[in-house]
Every structure is written in C-alpha cells, then in structure tokens.
C-alpha cells in the first residue's frame, strides 16, 4: 500500500497546523460559525444531534494494522470506545470534542491518516473495489489511480468551493464492486485492444433526492490523460453546476439538464486544451505509484487445501463461514476474507476499540498486514492463506467478528439515521437490528441466498437504499416514522435504481413486510440458484405488491 514520503508528511503536518489555528480562532470567537463551517467540513467535522462527528479518510478503503490500532486508540481516548465504518469506506467517530480535534488529527498524521476533504463541497474520498489487488477477476489494480487522484485532489485551489460535494469511484474488473455508476465520476480501469491501460469514464451518477445512473461519456481514456480529463470535467462542473438550489447542485443534474452528449462535448473541448500541459501523467510517475501496490510476495501454502477440507468437515460453523465469507483469490493458495461487522441483532458497521485491535493483530499475523473497508460496511482481509483460515476464524469468533453472512439478508447496510444524524427523518439502526434478528438463523439465510438490504434514514441516501435489492427509506409522517420499500436496486455493473412498490410501513410492520417479500420470492423463484435480484428482474414488482397490499396497490406514501 501507499507509504507517505517527506512531501506527504509535510503536507499533513501543515494541514493539522492550519486547522489548529482555525479551531483556536473559532473557540476564541475570532472566526464566526458561518466562516468556520466550510473549513471544518473540509476537515471532516460535522455537527450532529448529540455531538460533533469526525469522519476520517481511509483512502480507497485500504489501511494497515498500525493505522487500525490508532483508530482504536482514538476511539478509546477521545470518544466512547467505538467507531462506525461507512458506505464510502471511511470511519466515523460520533462523540469527539472540537477542542480535541487538532490533537486527534496530529495523532492520525503520525500514522499517515487524515480527515481532509471527507466533507464539504470538494472532491471527497476516492473509493475503489475493496478486493483490489487480490480478486481473481481483476484486470488491473485501480488503487494506484485512486492514489494519484487522491493526491491531485487534495487542497486543489480551483476546486475547493464546488457547487456541491464530488465523489469519484474506481474499479478494475468487469464486475463492479465499487458502485461506480452511482458516483459523480465513475472510472472503469481496463485495457484496450492493444493492451494499453485506460478508463471508461462515467459521469453524473448519484443517489439522494434524484437517483440517477451515470452516463458513459468516454469509452476509452488513455492512462496518461487521467488528470487532464478529470480537470476538464471538474472545471465544466465548477463553472456550470447549479448554485441556486442545494438539491439541484450535483453534477448529475448538470448532465441531465445539459444532456450527456453536449456535456461530453464541453468536456472534450476543455480537455483538448489541457491534454498536452503539465497535467499529462508521466509513465515513470504511474510506475512509481503502482510500485507501492505491487502484489505482495505470497508464499506457497499448498498444505492449506488439505487442512481446509479437514477443518470444514470437523466444524460445520467454520465450513459455513468459509462458504459465505471467503472469496477466491488470484493465487489459488489464498482467499479474500470478509470480516462481518453485522452481528445478528447488532449495529451494522460499528466496531469497538477491542475489535479494531483484534483485527489489527490478525491482519499483522495472518494477512500480510493489509485490511480493507468495503462500501458495504464490512472489513476485508484480502490476502489470507487457506492454511491460515482456521486460526483466523477462531480469532474472529473470540471477538464477535465471525458472523457468516457476507452478502446475505442479515448483511444489512444502514446509515446512522435519526439515532445520530441531524439530517435524518427516521431511524435506521433499530430497523436493521430487528430484521437481522428475525432472519438470524443460518439455515434460513442460506436458504434465501444473496439478498442486499440497504436502509437510509432520509432522502440523502447515505445508506444507499436506491441500490439495495430491497431498499428502505425512512420518512417522517405526522411526527412518526414510516418506511418506504423499494425493490430491484443494484450497485453492480448492471446498476438499477430500486422501484417504490407502494405505501410505507410503520416501524412495527416493517419486518413482517420484509418477511412477506422474502416468502414471495421463495415461492416464485425458479430454483435456489435464482437470486432475489434475478427473480425480481424476471417477474417485476407485481407479485410483491399483491403479496404486501393484497392486489389493490395504494399510492406510495
């Protein structure tokens, strides 16, 4: 993974000093809240219902044990002993003091971490496939490019006051595990017929109030043009994105109102002027950055095959965990492990300081010291020898991190919701907990198969409900919570926005509704190999509407 050089260390130290000065001026009253707010947002500091919230950047979801231990230390020392992993591969602390934040950021800087641009109207954390560098189906590792974009976008003087936030995601396989089509810019790293590296460029995807699937505006962008082309997109957006209405200020609205073809043309015109400037990426620089992401030296561990078979036979729980939570690695002696942060009945995405420390220890001992955060709020150990799966599993069990539910119905994605968030209309966490408990039986989950439930507590869609196979959107109606259900969404390479199926459900009716939907699916699927999503795409919403609303579909709430 990337390691800071002198330049990076100096930059982060200067940024901490700058923010320390700003915090001091704010606390003394010299800086007003209006002037301070965009500055604190650009350092990841939100004000929530109960306290401030600090969002720490985990670049493209990659971190090592030293960094994870620091997160545990911060949780313990400055917060209430836990943190929350987010749908953008970041980490949130819910109770830090503003007066402590410069010290927190200084401590993070000592392990090459920061909270720069995790909020504000600027370019946010560049996310990537959480299986990057390990997945068997990967064409090329997207992370070097995510790292180049991360650097280039840090305190960019032209793009620090955009009309609105800007999110970029990169994927390097045909299977899209980074949801690039619901990002402002989505980059699909690929090779052309000549074997040259480049990107398919998508622009204008997003969720929130007006969910939209991104438009392909460039079939193949050569690698060396990454920064100049991105600059062109950003400049067009900065100049022409709407600033009159906060809810119409994302680039997706600009693409929609201008038309994708016309917008692509405007970008090409600007790009033509930028292409041969100092923004052209030298091969040497790409090679140097890529070197940080070179595949680790993986020892041959062929003994794992036999051990694994033996362990699975001896322990059905272990076998189930391997089946569900271990994915094929490029190297046949290895696997990619998903550490579930979705214990049955638990809070999705939360981890205590002890759990973070445990993951750090396991990663260091068994996983070449590499950890990932997925946008589905789980942790990943991308390189684990099959021969080490059993001790890893035991260590995870000891810390409540071995729930065998990756991609299953209890692997729920939920935003913090009204329990924490000042923007929310309804709670998400208790809803997730109840659904998880209802469907907690491993046999039942296995029977149902892959089913992604995503819950958002408001229209901002931080829970990504629009791309849930089952999506839940919490709204407020007459002072009470109500949940709208959408079906058939997906964030993969065949991205689709879920369809609202009818009027909403009260909190105490939601889990029953989910059960009805699941039973309907089980009743009409061709066979066990037809997933919920595939079945929905085959039969459409009607059978589900009939089951839920008894054949007379009322207007959506």
């Amino acid at each position, binding site marked *: 993974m990337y390691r800071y*050089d002198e*330049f990076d260390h*100096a*930059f982060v130290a*200067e*940024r901490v000093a*700058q923010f320390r*000065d*700003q915090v001091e*001026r704010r606390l003394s009253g*010299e*800086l007003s809240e209006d*002037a301070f707010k*965009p*500055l604190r947002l650009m350092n990841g500091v939100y004000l929530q219902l109960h306290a401030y919230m600090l969002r720490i950047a985990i670049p493209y979801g990659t971190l090592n044990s030293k960094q994870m231990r620091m997160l545990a230390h911060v949780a313990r020392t400055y917060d209430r002993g836990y943190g929350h992993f987010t749908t953008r591969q970041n980490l949130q602390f819910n109770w830090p003091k503003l007066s402590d934040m410069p010290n927190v950021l200084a401590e993070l800087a000592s392990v090459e971490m920061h909270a720069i641009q995790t909020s504000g*109207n600027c370019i946010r954390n560049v996310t990537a496939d959480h299986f990057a560098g390990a997945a068997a189906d990967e064409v090329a590792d997207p992370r070097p490019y995510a790292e*180049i974009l991360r*650097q*280039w*976008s*840090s*305190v*960019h*003087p*032209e*793009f*620090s*006051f*955009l009309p609105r936030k800007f999110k970029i995601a990169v994927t390097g396989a045909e299977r899209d595990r980074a949801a690039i089509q619901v990002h402002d810019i989505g980059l699909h790293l690929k090779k052309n017929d000549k074997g040259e590296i480049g990107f398919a460029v998508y622009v204008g995807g997003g969720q929130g109030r007006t969910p939209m699937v991104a438009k392909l505006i460039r079939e193949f962008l050569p690698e060396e043009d990454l*920064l100049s082309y991105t600059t062109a997109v950003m*400049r067009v957006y*900065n*100049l022409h994105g709407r*600033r009159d209405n906060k809810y119409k200020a994302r680039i997706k609205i600009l693409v929609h109102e201008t038309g994708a073809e016309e917008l692509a043309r405007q970008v090409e015109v600007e790009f033509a*002027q930028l292409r041969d*400037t*100092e*923004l*052209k*990426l*030298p091969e040497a*620089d790409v090679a*140097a*950055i890529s070197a940080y992401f070179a595949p680790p030296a993986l020892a041959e561990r062929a003994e794992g095959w036999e051990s694994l078979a033996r362990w699975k036979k001896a322990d059905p729980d272990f076998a189930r965990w391997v089946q569900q939570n271990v994915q094929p690695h490029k190297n046949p002696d290895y696997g990619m492990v998903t550490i579930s942060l979705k214990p049955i009945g638990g809070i999705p995405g939360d981890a205590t300081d002890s759990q973070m420390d445990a993951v750090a220890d396991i990663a260091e001992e068994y996983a070449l010291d590499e950890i990932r955060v997925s946008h589905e709020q789980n942790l990943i150990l991308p390189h684990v020898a099959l021969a080490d799966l059993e001790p890893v599993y035991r260590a995870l069990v000891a810390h409540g991190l071995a729930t065998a539910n990756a991609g299953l119905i209890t692997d729920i994605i939920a935003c913090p919701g009204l329990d924490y968030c000042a923007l929310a209309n309804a709670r998400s966490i208790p809803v997730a907990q109840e659904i998880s408990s209802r469907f907690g039986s491993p046999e039942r989950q296995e029977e149902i198969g892959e089913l992604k439930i995503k819950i958002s507590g408001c229209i901002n869609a931080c829970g990504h409900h629009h791309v849930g196979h089952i999506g839940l959107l919490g709204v407020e109606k007459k002072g009470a919570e109500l949940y709208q259900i959408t079906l058939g969404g997906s964030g993969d390479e065949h991205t689709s926005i879920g369809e609202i199926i009818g009027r909403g459900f009260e909190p105490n009716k939601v889990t029953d509704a989910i059960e009805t939907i699941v039973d309907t699916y089980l009743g009409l699927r061709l066979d066990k190999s037809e997933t919920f999503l595939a079945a929905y795409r085959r039969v459409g919403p009607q059978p589900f509407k009939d089951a839920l609303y008894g054949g007379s579909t009322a207007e959506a709430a």
Partner: protein
Amino acid sequence: MTKIWKETGFVKNDPWVIETEETKATESQKPLLPLDALIARAEESNDVGLGVLIKPADDVRKLEPYLDRLEIVAVAFPAFNDGRAFSHASLLRQRLGYANELRAVGDVLIDQVPLMLRVGIDSFAVTNETALKRLAENRLPGIPHHYQPTVRTADDPGSYSWRRVSRTIS
C-alpha cells in the same frame, strides 16, 4: 472600510471602483466595467487601461480579444463559497495568458486568500476585519506543499509531476 492588499503590502490611492446606482466613479477614479459594457467600450473606442468586473456566471473567455486593453480584471466572490471565480482566474492566467492585475472582490476572507494566490489572483479588496489584521501581519494560513501545478510560480520538489512547493506561505 475596504482596503486593497497585495503581497507587497496595502495599496494607497487605488483608483478602481465598482459602480452602483448610488456610487459612480469620480474624476480620480476609474470604473470596473461589467463584461458587456467593457466589450462595448473596447469595440467603440481606442481606450486602453480599462478595468472589468467578471461575475460568477460570466464567460471570461470573451475577454480574449481585449486583454491588451485591460489594466485590471476583477473577479467577484459574491459569497466566499461561490468558487466560480477560481476557475475564471485559472483560465485567465493559464489559457488566455493574461498578465496584468487580477483582483478578488466580494466576500474575501483570510482562509481563502492562499487558494486565490495560487490560481493567480494578485490583489484583494478586503473588508473583513480578521482578514485585514492577518494580512497586515503577513500571517497567511496557507500550506506551502501543493499537489497540483498552478500558474503561480512554485518550485518543483523533484517528486511526482503534479507536485509543487511554494517559497512563500501560500
């Protein structure tokens, strides 16, 4: 009380004024013309030493034929978080090669001055008290390590092509 600041210090007797319904340029002052008015004046006269005020929604590239007639271009920040003028400044310097005075007007606050300097803005109409104080003390809250090349001269740190280092704190 609005003062004009440059890196060389506060400027006395600055002649440029933004005209309103109530305020017009006096004998010793010169107006910063709105874009359309500037284009008309340049087309209809041989005047040089002109000044123009670029608003956020203006297309700054329309100035291209008249750059040599301009002594000053002012770019407006009606609210400090309206970042369009950063692009106007970048285009003026990098694309159009404009080399004369480039001034930030409007909601100019100390925390954005380092970013404005980096995109090539070299003078500032400042009203905010904290900003005036910090500028008088030459205490700019900038970061001298940069991850982007911009038109403002900065050193190559001998590292990746996109990085620069400022000698001054901006």
